């Protein structure tokens, strides 16, 4: 019996079934606690009432979730382009490393929430501040990791290529870029979550739509179940985004252990 259980724990099915069961269990315990201790709806709504709110407001939730997804993705794509470009500069150019990198680090220490009001003044309370905040939070880890990847190529690996008379470009193609890919993908997983945080923060400070906006409006109307439904929708979005990159990573760097 024991060995059978151990076998199950190591199986692929277990890695899907167990998290699913744990989530169900969490909601069941939550529901029981709320009912037994008669916790008021506006403190902690029960899962059943959250579900009810989600069903009632599903068009609004879907529309706002879509908007958040679009702003996050847009900001994130800009962040990838900028981050990879900056990473190359820092990784390959000594001058860029000495001049640009300290500025980037300094900029990165500014809490980005503090920038949202400014962005709203410049661009208005719409999707632009959310997109920009997503971008601002996400590009830094990408740039740093790409630079790190380029910088950590084994000198001997470069020597193998150079001893064949390879050009700088060829060394990059055959060694630099593939070596950097795992670093890039590690950063993409983090940066995707960062972008998501960025857009939701911006939406809740200054916006006219999106999940952050929906949650702020719901809370100010004391519609706590709807706010929770919004939170859960955000959790689902976040997991989907993260999962997407995990799968992409598996295919792109199949060779890594």
């Amino acid at each position, binding site marked *: 019996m024991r060995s059978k259980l151990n076998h199950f724990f190591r199986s692929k099915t277990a890695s899907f079934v167990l998290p699913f069961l744990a989530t169900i269990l969490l909601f069941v315990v939550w529901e029981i606690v709320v009912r037994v201790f008669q916790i008021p709806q506006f403190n902690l709504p029960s899962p059943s009432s959250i579900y009810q709110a989600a069903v009632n407001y599903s068009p609004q939730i879907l529309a706002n979730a879509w908007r958040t997804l679009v702003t996050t993705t847009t900001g994130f794509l800009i962040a990838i382009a900028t981050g990879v470009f900056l990473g190359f500069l820092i990784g390959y150019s000594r001058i860029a490393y000495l001049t640009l990198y300290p500025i980037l680090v300094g900029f990165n220490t500014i809490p980005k929430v503090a920038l949202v009001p400014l962005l709203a003044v410049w661009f208005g309370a719409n999707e632009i501040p959310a997109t920009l905040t997503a971008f601002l939070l996400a590009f830094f880890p990408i740039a740093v990791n790409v630079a790190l990847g380029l910088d950590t190529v084994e000198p001997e690996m470069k*020597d*193998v290529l150079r*001893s*064949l008379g*390879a050009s700088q470009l*060829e060394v990059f193609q*055959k060694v630099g870029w*593939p070596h950097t890919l795992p670093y890039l993908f590690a950063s993409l997983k983090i940066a995707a979550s960062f972008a998501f945080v960025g857009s939701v923060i911006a939406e809740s400070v200054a916006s006219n739509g999106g999940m952050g906006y929906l949650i702020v409006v719901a809370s100010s109307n004391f519609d706590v179940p709807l706010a929770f439904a919004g939170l859960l929708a955000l959790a689902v979005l976040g997991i989907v985004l993260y999962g997407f990159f995990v799968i992409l990573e598996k295919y792109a760097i199949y*060779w890594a252990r």
Partner: protein
Amino acid sequence: MIQHQSLTNSINLTTFETNNFLEFDRVGLEYSVDSKPRRIIEDVSFSINQGEFVSVVGPSGCGKTSLLKMVSGLNPTLIGEIRLQGNKITKPLKNVGIAFQNPVLLPWRNTLKNVLLPLEVVQPYKREYKKRLPEYKRMAQELLTTVGLQDFQQQLPWQLSGGMRQRASLCRALIHQPEILLLDEPFAALDAFTREEMWVMLQNLWMRVQCVGMLITHDLREAVFLSDTVYVMSPRPSSIIYQLKINLPRPRTLEMCLTDDFNHLFSDIRRHIRRG
């Protein structure tokens, strides 16, 4: 008269090519430590003939690896000069194969693709890479068969053992038919039995290609087994203090390592090694 002139020239050229293929001419090396210059290599002068396999042995820190990097052109030769067929080496050579102690296979390529790498970079192979790929693959497979890796073509480097990786690395160093094979302690990280097997495989590979071989090693038996000539370097600041011709017949076998002839050669070299 003019004809006569050109005739002597061509004769000179041929003798030059076979007898002084690679020349080390008063090669030295200095490092600056705390802005004080420190001499590593005092004076290394010797030459390698066409098709000759030489080993350079000596205590650690005497600049053997630096010497190899200078031959390949990866590091500049600032004192003295190294000449390949009479031409001073100033930039990375295109026609060398290198294997290091660490096999440095590219982890994102399987064994076959790792071996094919030089053909993607070195001319004239690169020009016709797409067109002649099937032929190139056969070349790589032949080499891999010589070292017993024919069944591991699709494996990624981390799926291979240390010895297998080093064998693949040797195939990679030789597939583009280099004029010079440079080996920097290629078997130092392997266990004694695997190492001896590798000597035999390396000899087989080298006898197929018939290029100049230069091996840097700490293992004197390895040097005797593989070389036509062994050069011994002194401790820092180093120079060549002894050279020994190895006249054992080829192909050499591991049984030969147990003969008196072999052991005499070994002891002869051992007596000349001094610690730094």
